[in-house]
């Protein structure tokens, strides 16, 4: 087997683009959210400032090996997820490292970072970290289910697990998008999307305002910087999967930017409109509203 070494700089290029796009986009979305709440919001470059500040912090502590490795796992998960999926359809340059595996790899690799993060935060010994993780894990089991069903429906529909082939099947006009050929699956997936974006009504896991809870509590300085980097990359990587599976993929960077923004906006839009669920409520909500859609979509195919 020969390896095309040019893939590495190309992949790094993708990473660079997405990283910057992610930093800007999350800030932009945050600003939109703030405006919806009649607040001024952060400047668009706020994420860069935070990042530089955190990398620059001199004080740093560690609770042990897993604590140290947690953010590394987290970011590896985000970067890996991005690189295992082709970003731009039809472009050899931005097909990244998708030769390593198909859709299933991407879906399971999502958990890589989650697991590492959970372990790292766990070693800090902070009970709030553990509470946040249990909530997050509990919620994710229910939230991921509609997505898994939708993905499966899509795989059945196109008879393939290769992301590239799924995108290829949706080319030739909007009406070929999965959104229109299999609306039930897309509906289920988009509801699942809400659950994974850490926004209301499903953000009790992070509970950003009330108490310092969740994994980030104990992390600071460079650790936090790594996690922030991830927070720029990971949602985009995830949205790329959605875009590829349901919305026809992207054939160019502008198309990419628009689609990612709109999908991201969907979660922000819902987030500013609805109050927060408790964990058991969100589990029930997913099982009652989203899962049946996914089941129907599978039976529909």
């Amino acid at each position, binding site marked *: *087997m020969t390896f095309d070494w040019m893939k590495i700089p190309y992949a790094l290029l993708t990473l660079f683009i997405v990283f910057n796009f992610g930093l800007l986009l999350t800030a932009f979305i945050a600003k939109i959210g703030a405006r919806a709440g009649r607040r001024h919001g952060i400047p668009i470059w706020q994420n860069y400032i935070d990042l530089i500040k955190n990398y620059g912090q001199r004080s*740093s*502590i*560690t609770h*042990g090996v*897993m604590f*140290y*490795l947690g953010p590394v*796992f987290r970011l*590896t998960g985000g*970067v*890996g997820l991005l*690189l295992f999926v082709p970003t731009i359809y039809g472009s050899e340059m931005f097909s990244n*490292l998708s*030769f*390593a*595996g*198909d859709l*299933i*790899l991407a879906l*399971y*690799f999502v*958990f*890589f970072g989650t*697991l590492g993060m*959970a*372990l790292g935060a*766990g*070693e800090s*010994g*902070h*009970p*709030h970290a*553990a509470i946040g993780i*249990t*909530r997050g*894990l*509990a919620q*994710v*089991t229910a939230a991921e*289910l509609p997505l*898994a*069903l939708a993905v*499966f429906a899509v*795989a059945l529909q196109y*008879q393939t*697990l*290769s992301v590239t082939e799924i995108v290829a099947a949706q080319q030739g006009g909007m009406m070929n998008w999965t959104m229109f050929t299999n609306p039930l699956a897309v509906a289920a997936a988009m509801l699942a999307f809400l659950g994974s974006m850490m926004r209301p009504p499903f953000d009790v896991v992070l509970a950003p305002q009330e*108490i*310092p809870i969740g994994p980030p*509590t*104990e992390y600071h*300085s*460079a*650790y936090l910087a*790594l996690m922030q980097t991830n927070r720029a990359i990971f949602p985009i990587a995830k949205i790329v999967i959605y875009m590829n599976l349901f919305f026809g993929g992207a054939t160019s960077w502008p198309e990419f930017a628009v689609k990612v923004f709109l999908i991201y906006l969907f979660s922000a839009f819902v987030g500013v409109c609805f109050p927060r669920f408790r964990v*058991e409520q969100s*589990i029930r909500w997913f099982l009652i509203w989203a*899962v049946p859609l996914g089941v129907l979509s*599978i039976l529909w195919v």
Partner: protein
Amino acid sequence: MVSPLYIIAVALVAAFLLGLLKEERRGLAYSVTLVTLALMSWISANWLWLFISTDAVPVEIYTAGTAPPFAINLRMGLVEAALTLLINLTGLISGLAMKDSLLRQGRRAMAVWLVAVMALSGIVLTRDMFNMFVFFELAVIATAGLVLISEHIRNDGLTLAAGFKYMITSQFISTFLLIGIIFAYHATGTLNIDGMANTSLVLLNGGSIAFFLMFIAIIAELKPFPANGWALDIYESADPAFSALFSAATGAAALYAADKLLLIGGAEWLPIATGIGIVTFVAANLLALPQTHDRRLLGYSSIAQTGLILVVLGQRDILGEHTLFIAGGLLLSHAVAKAGLFWLSGLVAGRELNAWAALRSHPLLVFAFVTFICMLTGLPPFPGFYAKWELIHLLAGEGRIALLGLILFSALIEAGYLFRWFGYVMKRESPAEPVDTAPHKTAAVLVAVIAAWGLSFLWGELAGALFGRGNILLALPLLFALSFLLLDPLPAWLKNTLAIAGMVAWFYLTYTEYDPLRMIFAAIFLIGGALTLLASYHAHGKRIGFYPSAMLMYAGLAMLIRATSTFDFFVAWELLTVGSYFLILRGKHSEPHALSYILFSLGGAFMILAGFALAAQGAPHFSLASLQELAQPLAPWVFLLLAIGFMTKTAAIGLHIWLPGAHAEAETDVSPMVSGILLKAGLYGLIMLLLTMGRQNFYGVDLVNAMLWIGAITALIGNLLAIFQEDAKRLLAYSSIGQMGYAMFGLALMNHLGWLMALMFVINHYVYKSMLFLAVGGVAKRTGTREMYRMGGLITLMPLSFIATLIGIIAVSGVPPLSGFGGRWIFYNAILTSEARLPMIILFLAGPIAFLYLFRLIYTIFLGQLKDEFRRVKEAPFWIILPQMIYVAILLVVAVVPGLVLRHVDAYLDQFFPNGGLSWDGMIITSDFGYWNPIAIMIIVGVIFMTLFSWLLFVNRRAQKVKQFNIVFSAERPFRPETTHFAWNFFAPYRKALGFLTLPLVTLFWSTMTDFLHTAGDLTRRFYTGNGQTYAYHLLGFVIIVYLFGMGIQP
């Protein structure tokens, strides 16, 4: 040859001579008694040897020099020789065991003892009806006399009352017998049994009533339900050595008498005998359930066994020439085991079942107890096993399914109370009174043990001669396992080395025989087993009983994969079941769990037996491969029975409740054996079944489809229950249930990739579950608890255990890049071609739940807050860590090159499922739908991880290690780890949302079932009021009912 008459004559003369001796010469009198009994035994033995070694025909002995009907004749044939030997030997050994009391009671008791034994031999030998009556009466009087004489020793009056009840009953019996005899004589003009049979007594005028009276009298001597209250009282109160004779010898003689009667009665009376037998078998076992008195329990069991043998006699129309083999196997098993148990009960001081825990300090006696119980339950290699196998097969072949079902059901109840008792012996508190180890008493028990194993060998040879089956006792793996019984005094490390060497050597000897499918299992069972045994080096001392049990299980496993016929398969299945039961029982608190394990397993085994028997349709040989030739309407039934049988081992939902306790309470190094290795036996069975039988349609239900659903639901419920466990090993056990559900689902998909996934699960589950159980076991060993919330923060103290656990949970959860992901990837590809979409959805739900319990496992043990009492905890012992590290290495290798194993299996599966295989093109694995490159994944993830890690090391190089409580905790410093470690009720929100799915409905169902049986037994037994008169009513009622049935059947 010495005439058999001397058996009777010698006893009579000796009894007479004893009367001449002076009362003081008790020692001499005792010697005379023993010598006489030995002489009687020797005569029988002589004859037996003659009949075995040559083809001699039975010999008739005409007592008055003339042929019947003018004189009484005796007959000595093979059966008579065997039975009289049994009776005389029991008499001799019981006499030995009763030494103390016989010496105290003096020569009269000895004379009566001789007469009793003689009378029983007479019942067997005589061919004359009236003579039989006389011998029966002699036996009654002798029995009553012995009870009366021995009374002053016990002096509690209980024995007396029992004896009087016996006399009341025998008065009724003898009246019936005499009247029957005289009318039979009137009708046929002869008293000779063969003469009556030849003149077809039952066809003559009034003959059937005459026969009925004789028949019912003899049957009543068999203590049939419900006319048996008197017998139970005797069993409960008499000297155990006497009870041994009463159970083994009297039972044998009466059974043979019934057999002779059936010769007269002819075919019409066989169903009646069967009916009485089966009712007795079921009822007596049911009534034995609530017993707590050991001897009464043994009494119930004796009655039950007699009933079973009566069934066999009643089924002689279809058993034909095999009746002797079957009835003999059952009778000898019963006699030897029951006599042995009664003698054993003479060693134990207390009468409660719990009191037998005193045996525990004597391994040899425990071994004797185990031998007897296994013999009674009909486990291989004992004669009862061969007999049961043939009986069930012949019944199934003739379509007598209801009888077959009742026999197996009742046998299960019997196994239930016997193994419960064994649990008491091993686990209950030892009573203060020690075991009486007088040499003559122990010797009696040991003779029974030797007889048990000798008979096993003999029956194995007989089965070889009659049916061409291999002698189980000659199977090399079993011999190897049994040899550890002799090696038990050696130190544990030496035995461990031998065990490992033996397993590896066996693998080396046989590895060429396996196809790739079997190779996987062989590797897991033998090499995997040897690997797990490495952990056993940590044990010190001798570890008595561990190696015979473990090797018995491995012997069963080794024989299972080599089995080609249903017989060999079933033998192996039973062996591995029993071996694993003994292993599981070794855990500290595992008594109830081991019991439920053996009950579910035996229930499953009986299902398998019934399935095999149905499939064979009476054919003496049935190879596993011929299962595929079965057609409707039989095939689905066979499939159903076998599938349920195998699913008890894989703990499918509904049959799973034994698993958590059994796996969690087992010893540290046993848990991986019974979880990682033993569970695969069930999967192997399912694979074998599906390969041969494929899809089956059962009244419109596709059974494979049903299995798909069961697999999915099992996966969901297993995973769901796992997340709510506080006990780490229980968590792993429930996780096994879930994993087995996945594997079953894969198999039931019935496509190429489904099977590949199942096999991958087989391998992966072995590796990571063994590893996790060892890791958790090591932690539990060091911390002294299995409750996860009591632990915490152990990562720095037990780093290697942590690494094993970490690798383990990544592999279980299926996160790339470790080997679990391969399983998931194949799973998705497999279901893409399947039509079964709804059960798949359940499986989708089950998948992520695994993350919950896995995270809980690693977090609450190794992360979070370290407790004060564990600050000095050390890493787990080296020998427990070593196999874990090997497993880590295996997991990493399999993760990178899964093709190492899988591509061979993949290619092998092509012959069964030609479509949908994977293609192994270099490093890339491609299916019809997707692709996967394990090495690339590993490299990419590794490079990204290392790059980021280096970056973090660079920017964060001065990070300081801080103390435990240096955290931001609500603006305060937490002051106790216990209040800061978030671990108990970890997934409370999840319980709120989905807890309703974990209601213990299955447990409730099974406990209601057992309670119901118990209560039924407890209520029914109250009808034995203890009043001798009531017992007489029972007898009369029994006679009337049998009369109505019997005469109703007659033409």
